[in-house]
């Protein structure tokens, strides 16, 4: 019941929101809806833990071999929670931004949430594909209607990129389906597939490109900075906070366990790509003068590490990715909130035009510095256990011969991250004020509340990550076991 509600609440409230023309009313309506979703998600995590609550299945497209099957497992719990937490935060933080035709804006936001929930919950490949696309369509409209100056071309690029990716994935899904023993789209039958190593490699690339575009992994990332820059900030938060996790999620649920042999064969290549992307994105971030683009490139670097850790194929790396998906989501939303405040006040995002904000806006500076340090994975902040686990996983990986090199190069990006983050803090918040920044006003109460919640989460998870790690522990073990191909060799 829980997973069904998680999809239906945003879906139905979103459809209703199209008809609430009053801006204030629709805002409250959306806040109510997202609050409800959050409480359902928390209930699923804490109270309703029996299987009968956590899964739902009914017949759908029976002749095609597909059913409407949704289940909340460890990773699903975590990502649905992220999705559910993100929306109230985003709403709170952007309470003062006004949008023309706001009912359409909020309705599309909720539809996107429903789509993403579906992606995280689907246990049937066709259903997964359905939701994967459904999350994309509202995003396309959101960015194209409410975005910046170059929005139409940029969003179209984003759309075409992801659409081509998902079509390739569709071929992959069809290929596995046609080779699956029971001719079904059910995830269990996908996991039981027996195809040759050559066929696995084909499927691997068909799926991987789709996920790599979504995450994005170098060299499929070129849509991302433009889109983040042009999209309205609330949408950017959804895109970078939650939606990119769809790619990481896809790798873990639909790629690694389905084609373990190909994942092993191509693991080194992928990890290399990811690490090149990390360093490359960090170097560009250092050069950026635009706050939004800086955060966008920093996101590429973080996601790259997750990708590398997934292909380390061990428990430590996997758990690190899990917890980091959640952390990265809330941290980056925190960064965007501050960027949004700055942009709304000064009408510019250029670092060179800002300076000295901390003098008149101490609360904003303090909150932002904490979030930025969390983004750097400083100990005691939430990202530290995640990154530590991931590096640990990468270093101890048994599936690659180059683990030391991978870890060393990935480590460089941490240093680079410190360079660009601290540099940005220094230039924007400290130093001398100029004419523009002299007019600064500190954060409003709603923004303070949103940032405050994020900071609390940062510290809570930083001090006691075990709570989250326990949620995904069994799931990670299962995935690592499925991805392990050593038994195959022993068998022969």
């Amino acid at each position, binding site marked *: 019941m829980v997973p069904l509600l998680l999809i239906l609440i945003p879906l139905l409230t979103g459809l209703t929101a199209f008809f609430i023309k009053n801006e204030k009313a629709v805002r409250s309506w959306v806040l109510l809806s997202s609050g409800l979703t959050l409480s359902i998600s928390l209930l699923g995590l804490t109270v309703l833990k029996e299987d009968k609550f956590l899964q739902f299945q009914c017949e759908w497209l029976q002749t095609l071999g597909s059913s409407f099957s949704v289940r909340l497992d460890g990773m699903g719990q975590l990502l649905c929670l992220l999705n559910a937490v993100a929306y109230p935060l985003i709403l709170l933080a952007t309470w003062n931004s006004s949008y023309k035709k706001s009912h359409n804006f909020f309705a599309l936001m909720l539809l996107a949430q429903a789509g993403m929930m579906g992606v995280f919950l689907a246990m049937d490949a066709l259903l997964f594909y*359905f939701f994967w*696309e459904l999350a994309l369509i509202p995003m396309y409209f959101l960015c194209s209607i409410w975005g910046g100056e170059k929005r*139409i071309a940029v969003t179209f690029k984003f759309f075409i990129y992801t*659409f081509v990716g998902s079509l390739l994935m569709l071929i992959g899904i069809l290929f596995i389906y*046609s080779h699956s023993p029971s001719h079904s789209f059910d995830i269990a039958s996908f996991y039981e597939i027996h195809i040759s190593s050559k066929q696995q490699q084909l499927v691997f690339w068909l799926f991987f490109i789709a996920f790599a575009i979504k995450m994005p992994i170098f060299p499929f990332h070129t849509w991302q900075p433009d889109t983040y820059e042009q999209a309205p900030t609330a949408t950017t938060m959804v895109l970078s906070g939650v939606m990119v996790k769809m790619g990481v999620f896809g790798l873990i649920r639909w790629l690694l366990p389905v084609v373990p042999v190909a994942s092993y064969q191509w693991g080194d290549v992928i990890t290399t790509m990811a690490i090149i992307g990390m360093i490359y994105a960090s170097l560009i971030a250092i050069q950026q003068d635009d706050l939004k683009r800086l955060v966008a490139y920093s996101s590429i670097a973080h996601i790259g590490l997750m990708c590398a850790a997934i292909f380390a194929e061990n428990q430590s790396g996997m758990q690190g990715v899990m917890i980091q998906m959640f952390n990265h989501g809330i941290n980056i939303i925190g960064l965007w909130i501050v960027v949004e405040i700055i942009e709304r006040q000064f009408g510019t995002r250029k670092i060179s035009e800002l300076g000295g904000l901390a003098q008149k806006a101490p609360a904003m500076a303090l909150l932002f510095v904490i979030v930025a340090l969390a983004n750097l994975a400083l100990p005691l902040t939430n990202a530290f256990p995640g990154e530590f686990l991931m590096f640990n996983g990468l270093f101890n990986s048994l599936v690659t011969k180059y683990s030391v090199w991978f870890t060393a190069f990935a480590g460089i990006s941490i240093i680079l991250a410190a360079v660009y983050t601290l540099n940005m803090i220094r230039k924007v918040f400290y130093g001398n004020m100029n004419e523009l920044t002299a007019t600064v006003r500190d954060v409003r109460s709603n923004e303070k509340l949103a940032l405050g919640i994020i900071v609390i989460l940062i510290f809570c998870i930083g001090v006691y990550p075990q709570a989250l790690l326990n949620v995904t522990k069994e799931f990670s073990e299962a995935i690592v076991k499925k991805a392990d191909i050593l038994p195959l060799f022993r068998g022969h």
Partner: protein
Amino acid sequence: MNALIVSALLGVLMMFSGILLKQKKALRNVAIAGMVLLLMLNVLEMAGIVLFKIDTKGMMVFDRFALLFTTIAFASTLLYLLLSARDMEKVGINYAEYFALIFFILCGITLTASFKSLLILFLGIEIISIPLYILTGSDKKNLKSNEASLKYFLLGSFSTGLLLMGIALIYGARGTFYTNDITVFTEAKPSALIVAGMLLVLFSMSFKVSAAPFHFWTPDVYDGAPTVFTSFMATIVKAAFFIAFIRLFDDAFGLLQSKWQLLVAIITVATLFIGNITAVFQQSVKRMLAYSSIAQAGFMMLSLFAMNTDAKEGLLLYTAAYSLATIGIFAVLIKMNDYSFDGFNGFARQQPLLAATTTIFLLSLAGIPLTGGFLAKFYMLKAVMISGDHLWLVIVAIFMAAISVYYYFRVIQAMYFKEGDSPPIEVSRGFKWTLVLLAALVILLGIFPSLLLNWLYF
């Protein structure tokens, strides 16, 4: 059998009511009532109630497949009439005759959906084609319409000639017109006569469904014909030709699949390629839709290539989803003053409901999930995938689908993201609600295709 007789009678009735009824509204209502009757009788036949029993000597068979398709075609025509019948007034003065011709075409569609003999196939195709030539040229004062009509007539009769020649060769080889008897042979090597006949039939049918490289008439004819009739030609009629195509090849040449499969694959790829690539460069939405119909034909050709259960089910779904979406877009297009992409600028601000429904139709044509268009394409790809080692064809088709997003989304971009100040258009309430119904059907097909496909078996 119900539909065959009644549609012919209704055609005659419409011709006479043109003399008796002077009011256009009355004529329209008679036509729509007749259409409802036709649809109901056809559904009754599916339920086993046959009003007319005529011995066709096995030349026709009204099986589930045929009846379901005719139901789809009649339902689409009904929706088409509800949406666009009013706009036929603008074409010319022979209002009643247009309806009569449409009913005759439906009679032909019944023939092509249920033939078991090549003669009936030929008859059906002619009964469809001749009224179409007339409808294409019905805007008599318009040079483009006349040109289109003449072009269509010349090329169409040429291809019909090919069909006849093919049928003659097949008759020469097998001594029969019955499609089922054509396949029953045991010789290891089919005679040259039958292969030549089959190829002629293949080319002629490819012409009818506007598959490349026999598609050259399509853009000009679709563009030149009055837009109301383009809508009908590009959807229901094309679907009917496809049904005839797959029926013929399934019944008559199924065992020869190895002989024609590669050829069909080439035609499919060429159709997909030419349709999609050329559509990208169009400046007029009407012409874009003409090329898009070629591109969609390419996708439907996949069902011919695969020729299995999925392909046949999928083709039915495809015809339904494609017809509904295209009829909807054309219905909106007819109302527009300017057929170029820029004519749609700012349309969402002016007509939010029309823009929203048009978006759903375009998404369906582009094959976005949750619309009938996605599942239709999905069925096609799945059919090809399980028919053997043809991954390359699937990949080509997928890439072409990705290209199609470009030109379909150009309309969406114009409607929603660009500002424009075209003069406002007026539409009635009934028109709006019918469009909403159409959009709802498109989405319903995308979520529960079994609502349609179960009719095939139960």
